[in-house]
C-alpha cells in the first residue's frame, strides 16, 4: 500500500517480552483507579478499543501486507449483530457476541478466499466496497437495525454478572488490550508469524517453501475480522446505543491511519497510533466534522516525514542520540 519500507521490530525473546508487558498490564490495571471521572474513563476505553482493533488490523496490513479499507464494517456488523440478537431476540449478551463473531468470521473467511486474490488497488477497492455495502445494509434495514437513527443495546451480562459503571468496563477493555498485545506478540514470533511476514516481502518465495499463501491470508483476515467484530459487540453493550456510522468509510480510514501512523508491523506502534488518533478528536472537539480531513493530513504528513511510522522513527532517533 505504501512505498516506504517499514521497519519491523525484531521480535523480542520470550522472557524479555513478558516483562514490559507485565509492567504495562499493571499500569493499565491501576488506571481506572486513577482517572478522576467517567469522562476520562470513557476516553481511555475508546483508546483501548481502537488499539485492540488496530492491533488486529495491523496483523493484516503491516505484517501480511494486505490492505483493508473496509474494516470498520466488521466493527459495525459485530456491534449490530450483538445488539440485534440481544435486544430484538432476547439472547443473553454473551451468546449474542459469540454468535455474531462466529457469523462474521464465517462471512469474512468466504470473502477472504475470494477477494484476497486481488492485488494492490483492486484489493483496496474490493474491501472498500464491502465496507460501503455493509453500511448501506445497516442503514436501510430499518426493521432490524432501526435505520440511520440507530438502535439501543442492552448491558453486558456474563454468568449473572453485569458489567456496569465506567470502572468495570475500563478494566474489561484494558484486560482485553493486554491479552491482544500478548497474543499478537506470540503470533509474530512463531512459524505462522514468520510465514505471514514473509508473504509481505516475497509471496512467491514463501510458497516455494511450502507456505499456503491463500490459506494464510484468508486465516489472518478472518482472525482480524473476528477480533474486530467482537470489539464492536462489546462496544455496543458498553455504549448502549449504536448507529450505522460505526461501519462507515471514515471509520475504516481512521483505523488504517492508526496502523500506518503508529507503524505497520509494530504491535506497540499500533497502540501508539491508536492512542494518538483517539485522543485527537477530544482535542479537536471544536472542529467537529473536519476530523476526516485532519486524519488525512496526519496520514500525509507521517508518510512524508516519518515514513516508517512513529515508533520506529523515534526508536531510530533515540538510538542515534545514544551513539
Amino acid at each position: 500500500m505504501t512505498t516506504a519500507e517499514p521497519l519491523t521490530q525484531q521480535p523480542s525473546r520470550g522472557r524479555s517480552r513478558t516483562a514490559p508487558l507485565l509492567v504495562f498490564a499493571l499500569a493499565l490495571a491501576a488506571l481506572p483507579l486513577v482517572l478522576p471521572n467517567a469522562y476520562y474513563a470513557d476516553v481511555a476505553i475508546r483508546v483501548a478499543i481502537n488499539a485492540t482493533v488496530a492491533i488486529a488490523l495491523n496483523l493484516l496490513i503491516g505484517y501480511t501486507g494486505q490492505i483493508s479499507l473496509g474494516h470498520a464494517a466488521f466493527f459495525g456488523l459485530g456491534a449490530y449483530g450483538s445488539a440485534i440478537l440481544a435486544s430484538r431476540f432476547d439472547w443473553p449478551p454473551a451468546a449474542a457476541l459469540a454468535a455474531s463473531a462466529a457469523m462474521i468470521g464465517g462471512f469474512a473467511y468466504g470473502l477472504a478466499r475470494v477477494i484476497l486474490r486481488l492485488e494492490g488497488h483492486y484489493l483496496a477497492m474490493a474491501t472498500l466496497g464491502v465496507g460501503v455495502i455493509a453500511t448501506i445494509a445497516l442503514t436501510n434495514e430499518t426493521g432490524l437495525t432501526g435505520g440511520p437513527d440507530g438502535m439501543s443495546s442492552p448491558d453486558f451480562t456474563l454468568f449473572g454478572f453485569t458489567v456496569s459503571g465506567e470502572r468495570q468496563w475500563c478494566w474489561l477493555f484494558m484486560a482485553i488490550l493486554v491479552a491482544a498485545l500478548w497474543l499478537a506478540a506470540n503470533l509474530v514470533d512463531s512459524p505462522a508469524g514468520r510465514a505471514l511476514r514473509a508473504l509481505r516481502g516475497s509471496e512467491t518465495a514463501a510458497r516455494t517453501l511450502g507456505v499456503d499463501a491463500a490459506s494464510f491470508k484468508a486465516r489472518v483476515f478472518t482472525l482480524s475480522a473476528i477480533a474486530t467484530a467482537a470489539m464492536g459487540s462489546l462496544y455496543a453493550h458498553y455504549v448502549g446505543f449504536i448507529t450505522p456510522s460505526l461501519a462507515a468509510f471514515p471509520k475504516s480510514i481512521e483505523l488504517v491511519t492508526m496502523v500506518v501512523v503508529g507503524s505497520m508491523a509494530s504491535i506497540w506502534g499500533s497502540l501508539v497510533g491508536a492512542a494518538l488518533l483517539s485522543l485527537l478528536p477530544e482535542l479537536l472537539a471544536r472542529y467537529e466534522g473536519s476530523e476526516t480531513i485532519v486524519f488525512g493530513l496526519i496520514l500525509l504528513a507521517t508518510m512524508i516525514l516519518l515514513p516508517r511510522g512513529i515508533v520506529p522513527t523515534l526508536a531510530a532517533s533515540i538510538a542515534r542520540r545514544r551513539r
Partner: protein
Amino acid sequence: MLGLKGFVAATLGGLGSGVGAVAGGIALGLMESLTAGYVSSAYKDAAAFVVVLLILVVRPRGMFGAATATRV
C-alpha cells in the same frame, strides 16, 4: 461519494487503461441506475458495489486492466 465512485469506476475498468476508465464509468452508472429502477433506490450504491466485486472476481485486474507477469 463522487470521488469514491470515480476510484471505483477506474478500478472496475482496469487501472492503466484509458478505455477502461471510460468503460468503467459507464458500466457503474448503468448498474446504479438499473438497480435504482428495478430493485430499490436505497440499495443502488450497494448493488453497484456488489456487481463490481463480482466482476473483479472474474477479472482480477478490472475489465481492461493489463495483466502483469511476475518476474522471478
